């Protein structure tokens, strides 16, 4: 008896490529966006470990579409961030080594956190800029 004989209705084929996961994620996106509109702060949806097939990912990306903003962040590797065609819904994709996707999520709100400058960085920048101006000033005085 062969294994296939035990399952006569099953044909040897690839697992389904569009699994319905993108549909489920989109429903969750809609629910979270509605919460944001009502004034709540909602956590991102992490797509990294979800069992999405490449077709699911493409479907999700295509249905969310692209909006008016696209940004690239160069910090510990490259990140791509774009607002989807639905204002307040952001796609955040971080790349690791060899340009593979290290993590990706959908964030909600006015802008994703990674686009904001951190207060600690701004403080350091203020010190750096002041020091640069001071040394330029000192150089000028020495030249004269």
């Amino acid at each position, binding site marked *: *008896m062969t294994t296939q004989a035990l399952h006569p209705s099953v044909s*040897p084929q690839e697992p389904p490529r569009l699994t319905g996961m993108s549909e489920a994620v989109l429903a969750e996106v809609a629910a979270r966006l509605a919460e944001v509109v009502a004034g709540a702060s909602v956590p991102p949806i992490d797509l990294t*470990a979800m069992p999405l097939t490449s077709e699911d990912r493409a479907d999700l990306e295509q249905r969310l579409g692209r909006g008016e903003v696209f940004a690239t*962040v160069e910090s*510990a*590797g490259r990140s791509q961030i774009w607002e989807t065609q639905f204002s307040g819904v952001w796609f955040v994709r971080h790349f690791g*080594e060899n340009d593979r996707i290290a993590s990706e999520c959908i964030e909600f709100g006015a802008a994703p956190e990674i686009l904001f400058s951190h207060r*600690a*960085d701004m403080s*350091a920048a203020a010190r750096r800029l002041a020091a640069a101006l001071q040394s330029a000033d000192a150089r000028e005085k020495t030249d004269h």
Partner: protein
Amino acid sequence: MPQAPKLAPTLGELLQERGVSRRAFLKYASYLSAVMALPAGSASALAEGLANARRQSVIWLSFQECTGCTESLTRSFSPTLESLIFDLISLDYHHTLQAASGEAAEKAREAAMAENKGKYVVVVDGAVPTKDGGLYSTIAGVSNLDMLKATAKDAMAVIAVGTCAAFGGIPKARPNPTGAAAIDEIITDKPIINIPGCPPIPEAMAGVVSYLVSFVKLPELDHLRRPKAFFGETIHDRCYRRPFYERGLFAEGFDDAGARQGWCLYKVGCKGPVTYNACATLKWNGGVSFPIQSGHGCLGCSEPDFWDQGGFYRPLSTNLRDMGPALAGAALAGAALGAGAAWASRRHQESYQREQNPNEGDKK
């Protein structure tokens, strides 16, 4: 009046000097949150925790091992997101990676222990020989057994990296001539985290260390002290070939039609149903592939005594006598789901082996 000792800079300050912004922390934290399946939205807290922490002193001890665990951690990273782990820790002692050798190396270990008493983390790869007073492996004239006990004494926590350190691994395989033992058989009074695998997934090592540095507590562990974030599900649970298993479609040899069509490898010995690890989701070599995707069954390398489970190419259902009750239960459940695969696979495996090695019977 004595001056208060100057505190070491935080990781945020340290990296800022090198032009690394807080965005890098946030990105790293997002990445770790994803691989460790931390609650949604915890990336910000993790990033802040990391930025405000100080570099964690790590003493890495290598005993009965092959250096594969170190290779896994170091060779899988390039100067990008993943390499940040090396900025988070101060690797104060590591045979393979440190420049110092001989007495200078041992002095570095002793200095790190004295300076960071009660705060340093000991990472161990390799089992520890205990037979005949542990004389089968020594470093600088000190047995591994004595070095482990002395170094772990003032440690905050011990991380057993790799199956040899976590469970004894290959050195402990029958007949275990050196009396090789796992770390938690020797150290019983410290928090211990096991990160098994032969080698372990680099993200699991980096993730656990980062979690420890950031939250100053152990991640949630299972009954074998493995972090649930990486060892909470079986390979089978997340295997992309599982739909074939559910339909009862199995490769019956490595070159048959089923194998070519990517069917389930249960019948050719895959230990995925009883192996807890994250290979199926995180994969290897920068996410390129993992053994099952490359056409070979899972060996079960992150489970205790994986080397002595009766053969890598025997289906689970043929090994039940050698396994503990939990493992046997899982295998039975798998066999039931596999719709009669057990009997058929045993028969087939025998005939397949006869086909592959027609003269083997003559040798016996």
